[in-house]
């Protein structure tokens, strides 16, 4: 983080330690004196919530792993034993499973906030890319975790998703066999997925530290999109952001607890209460809700791409679907360069706001389509919705930067805050002790 440290060790031990391993100083500078814009709204609390969600998933996951067996013949039953016979086992399992869903709820809100307030724009491109990497790792972790209970959806999800890789020309089938450790999804697959499901969260934690580091180098964005200009604009992280994040966190966990205790199966699939059966595919196989938009994109491509006026297939429908699906995620990496506008916050971009609202509604609709069977009216809708998804990134975002006339922006964060206070007819007088720490 930039700027000099304000940490003052008081105790003798503190001073001794500070000269050797200044961990307390690092914590103080990152989470106590760290300056944050004074105008952050509730959407800025999801970063902290996500960090706690990761911790919560790791803790419950470690507990579940104490009772779980990753053997195909006993995996399903071991989860049931955990739920039935282990003290608080059902709670742990529900918390972990529902937690995965809420992790994604939080991450989607976090991403949407970043997209609306232009958090990916210079100088925060690396911060954004690290975030997308975390998102990718989360998807891999969630997918492999869902395989572990070894129910019908676990098994057939693994079957379908590993088949993505068989779409790779020439080497696809070999790649898939290496992923599975066999000729079909089986015991070897389950074992390696368990191993990787245990590993990946710690990789997420590592990237998350880089993500926070990158954040603390550039500082946070804020709803005005105007960079911090003076110490008037900021307040110290503790107690202001700490107490706000804590409140948001507890509200978030209260909602999650409602699901854990009263609707634990609401976000799951009934078919996963049937043990994996390699001979019978469930009638209606769908991924977990957080993958549904991408599943719709996958199924929207049901046609071969041929060289015009010939019968030569360039990309068959299978590869095309997989490419479109991975493309839908990969395009996020290029977002910082696709958005050509100089204005950071969507609040001052009238056309962008419309485009963004359409993007969000379309993404939710795409998710709904992902849960529908690929037949009848649903297929053309999937195609249209997929088109709208990609159109947001190319060409709408680049074009908007050219044609849009942004609204006037405040000169500084403090100006915006003062204006808002006057709007509300309740101008506050600055308390002397709210004096923020300097930044630089």
């Amino acid at each position, binding site marked *: 983080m930039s700027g000099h440290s304000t940490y003052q060790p008081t105790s003798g031990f503190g001073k001794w330690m500070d000269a050797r391993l200044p961990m307390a100083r690092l914590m103080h500078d990152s989470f106590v004196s760290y300056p944050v814009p004074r105008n952050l709204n509730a959407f800025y609390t999801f970063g902290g919530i996500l960090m706690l969600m990761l911790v919560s998933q790791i803790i419950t996951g470690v507990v579940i792993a104490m009772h779980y067996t990753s053997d195909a013949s006993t995996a399903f039953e071991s989860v049931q034993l955990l739920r039935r016979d282990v003290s608080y086992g059902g709670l742990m399992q529900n918390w972990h499973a529902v937690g995965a869903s809420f992790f994604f709820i939080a991450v989607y809100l976090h991403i949407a906030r970043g997209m609306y307030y232009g958090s990916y724009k210079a100088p925060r491109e690396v911060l954004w890319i690290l975030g997308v990497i975390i998102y990718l790792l989360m998807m891999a972790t969630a997918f492999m975790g869902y395989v572990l209970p070894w129910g019908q959806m676990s098994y057939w999800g693994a079957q379908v998703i590993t088949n993505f890789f068989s779409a790779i020309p020439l080497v696809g089938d070999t790649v898939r066999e290496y992923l599975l450790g066999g000729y079909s999804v089986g015991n070897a697959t389950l074992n390696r997925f368990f191993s990787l499901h245990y590993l990946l969260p710690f990789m997420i934690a590592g990237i998350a530290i880089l993500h926070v580091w990158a954040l603390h180098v550039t500082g946070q964005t804020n709803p005005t999109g105007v960079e911090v200009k003076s110490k008037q604009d900021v307040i110290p992280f503790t*107690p202001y952001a700490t107490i706000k994040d804590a409140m948001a966190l507890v509200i978030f966990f209260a909602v999650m607890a409602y699901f854990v205790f009263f609707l634990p199966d609401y976000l799951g699939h009934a078919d996963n209460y049937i043990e994996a059966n390699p001979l019978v595919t469930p009638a209606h196989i769908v991924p977990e809700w957080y993958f549904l938009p991408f599943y719709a994109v996958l199924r929207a491509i049901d046609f071969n791409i041929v060289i015009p006026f010939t019968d030569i297939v360039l990309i068959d429908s299978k590869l095309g679907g997989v490419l479109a699906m991975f493309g839908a995620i990969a395009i996020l990496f290029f977002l910082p360069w696709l958005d050509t506008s100089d204005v950071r916050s969507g609040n001052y971009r009238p056309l962008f706001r419309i485009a963004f609202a359409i993007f969000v509604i379309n993404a939710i609709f795409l998710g709904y389509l992902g849960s529908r069977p690929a037949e009848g009216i649903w297929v053309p809708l999937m195609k249209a919705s997929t088109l709208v998804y990609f159109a947001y990134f190319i060409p709408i975002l680049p074009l908007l930067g050219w044609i849009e006339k942004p609204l006037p922006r405040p000169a500084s964060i403090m100006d915006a805050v003062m204006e808002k206070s006057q709007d509300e007819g309740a101008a506050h007088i600055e308390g002397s002790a709210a004096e923020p720490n300097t930044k630089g």
Partner: protein
Amino acid sequence: MAETSNIDGHGHDGENRRDFLYLATGAAGAVAVGGIIWPLVSQLAPNAREEAAGAPVQLNVSAVEPGMVITVVWRGGPYFVRHLTDEELELAADAPEDIFRDFAPLAARTGGPGVQPVDETATADENGAGATGGKIGRWAVMSANCTHLGCVPTEVDTGLDGWVCPCHGSKFDITGRVTKGPAPTNLPLPPFNFASEDILVIGADA
């Protein structure tokens, strides 16, 4: 809350209210942390199935002749069951107290039916869990995990010597009383009883 009281310049009452609020919030936070830790610790206990499987076991010992030792399993751990001969009982009863590191009378180390008290004066002491009062039984039933660090002692069966631990050399007599360290105490007795002449129950007192 002294470090935060300079945030504003409210009067004394406001400060009290605020202090109370901070205190209540902090207390709720402590409750939350406790509520998280409790299930995490609780799940470590043996689960309901382990508990149910740890119910007493019954076995027919009619085939175990005097002089024989069998090893039985209860709650996943090994237990020695020795049918003592008359000579062994006499040997064990006559052994001088000072050769034992943790002396217990024979009556406290044995149980079971068909016994003639060899030593009328012996009574069960605090080590006598499972023993049949002041009577000496023909059966010695004990845990087969050394009280030093848990290895299973090897049977030697020469005279008074019953077992030697292969890990660190502790010695036990034929009723499991320690005669040489590092084991500090005798092999512990499980709760046991004889449901009939031949049926030994390990895991429950009579």
